[in-house]
């Protein structure tokens, strides 16, 4: 029983972390059809910026906010100056975002050196709590809660606000949205800022669990892609379900079938895509 409780909590925490990582990617892909392959690098940049802010004397929460805003602004600049020129052209977008990922990752290595660094959780969230016989870190409980809060916030934004209505309209049909007076240009920039800011925030929130090190981006990007694909590209509910599904599959798969530890993430994805090529909650693309 303790086994199931503690591993389920592990799965929930990992799922929450993955949602923080993937929600921004999914949002951007859903609206703009841009597979932002620099997302992992932006996640890592967020973690490094958060760490730098903490070292500069900011509190954890201020550091998280700073990193999110800074990465979001960078995202906005990337969208305005570079991505905009390549609207609707998949391959150049791949080349551009991968190139940016190389630059950001190498710049992080240059700036902060190669030493892995720890980002301590805020003092009020350190330590462990006892749940039945299971011992569980308080910070991970926070991650479970925080990801749920982010998910709820995003859902409210998309479903209950005017901006959200515009986003939904543009996701369904950009041309039609423009025709009825939605400024797609501003909307695209805003969503790209929001999506990359979520990556930056995710980096800081994930920092105390993952620690901050070069190649964090390469470890994270495939996970983000997995979540988005399993759930269905561009669907917020899909990203949420995908993240928690992967959290559970990964955690229990590694524990119960250690020999499949490396492939456990990919087998279910292949199964899902073979049956439903657009993912669990995706719409058929193009």
């Amino acid at each position, binding site marked *: 029983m303790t086994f199931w409780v503690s591993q389920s909590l592990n799965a929930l925490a990992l799922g929450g972390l993955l949602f923080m990582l993937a929600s921004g990617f999914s949002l951007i*892909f859903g609206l703009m*059809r841009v*597979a932002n392959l620099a997302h992992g690098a932006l996640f890592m940049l967020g973690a490094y910026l958060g760490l730098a802010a903490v070292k500069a004397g900011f509190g954890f929460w201020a550091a998280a906010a700073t990193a999110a805003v800074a990465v979001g602004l960078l995202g906005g600049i990337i969208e305005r100056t*570079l991505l905009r*020129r*390549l609207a*609707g*052209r*998949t*391959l*150049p977008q*791949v*080349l*551009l975002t*991968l*190139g*940016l*990922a*190389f*630059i950001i*990752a*190498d*710049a992080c290595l*240059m700036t902060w050196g190669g030493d892995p660094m720890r980002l301590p959780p805020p003092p009020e969230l350190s330590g462990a709590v006892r749940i039945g016989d299971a011992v569980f870190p308080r910070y991970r409980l926070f991650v479970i809660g925080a990801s749920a809060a982010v998910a709820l916030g995003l859902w409210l934004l998309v479903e209950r606000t005017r901006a959200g209505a515009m986003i939904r309209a543009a996701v369904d049909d950009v041309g039609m949205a423009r025709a009825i007076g939605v400024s797609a240009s501003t909307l695209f920039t805003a969503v790209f800022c929001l999506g990359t800011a979520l990556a930056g925030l995710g980096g800081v929130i994930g920092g105390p669990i993952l620690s901050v090190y070069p190649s964090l981006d*390469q470890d994270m*990007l*495939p996970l983000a*892609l*997995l979540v988005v*694909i399993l759930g269905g*590209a561009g669907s917020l509910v899909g990203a949420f379900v995908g993240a928690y599904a992967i959290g559970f599959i990964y955690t229990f798969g590694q524990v119960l079938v250690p*020999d499949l*530890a*490396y*492939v456990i*993430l*990919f*087998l279910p*994805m*292949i199964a899902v*895509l*073979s049956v439903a*090529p*657009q*993912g669990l909650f995706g719409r058929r*693309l*193009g």
Partner: protein
Amino acid sequence: MSARVLPFAVALAAMAMVPLFSTSPFYVNLTSQVAIAAIGALGLNVLVGHAGLNSLGFAVFPGLTAYLVAWLSTVGGIDPVAAALFALGGTMMVSALFALVALRTTGLGFVMITMALCQIVWGAAYRWTSVTGGDNGLSGVPRPGGAWLPLEKPEYFLWLCLIVLALALIQLGRFFDSPLGVALRGTRDQPRRMGAVGYDVWRIRFVAWMLAAAWGAAAGLLYAWYHQFVSPHMMAVTASAEVLLMVVAGGAGTLAGPLIGAALVVLLKNLASIWIDRWVMLLGFTFVVIVLLMPDGIVPGFSRLTAWLKRLRPTPAPKLVPRERADG
């Protein structure tokens, strides 16, 4: 026809003559690496450029072949040439199985499912240490040949690579001009219409997949013989991404693009790093600059440039309509 062939002949001849001018075998070996990378990139270009199927798992084809030939010719103790034949055959069989899964999807789904397939083979290579050597890989892979064909010498090995590269260029050039090649581009641009007029879209894509696998396998075979070792790193996501970058940077859908892209990446990675410490960043900047100046890659970028220059003259302007794609 000959005007089309000429630049390739000149390029290959220039590469073949590197040993005559090079003061050190280093440059000969580097040229071999360009040739091997180009063969792989040409294979991926069938999918990316002509079938409109973007793969982030191409390294699985060279990886499978390299592991098979390495295992068969070291642990298995089989003659290198026989091992190569088995390895190529085995790769084609596995590739056909993979096609059954991968070709169910298109677009981003295809990107991800190819990445997943490659990661599964990568994971097997990593975890199944008793057979694959784990992260240590398999070393001591023998090159074929003997006194009559000293392939252990850099220049002979380069010439072998160039022969294979020439075969790839000839075969793919013919394929792209053939009715099947035209039909393949039809499935890229208008998959539904192609289906509606009676083409079997799946079968056309399957041919493209197997063709890509075959040239990927050839590149993997030469890779294993060149390095004389294999390790899981050659199937990492970054390895697949690198091949994709070669194709896109050079110009997807063109015959010369993959060659140019392969040369660019291999040389930046291995030659620029002699003079510049931060070569990863340089690589990143190069891609960004290419995208901004020539979004479709170097080769289409240059043809557009020359066309633009021609237009400055009072001859009638050639028609230059950017190709529209139905799926993105």
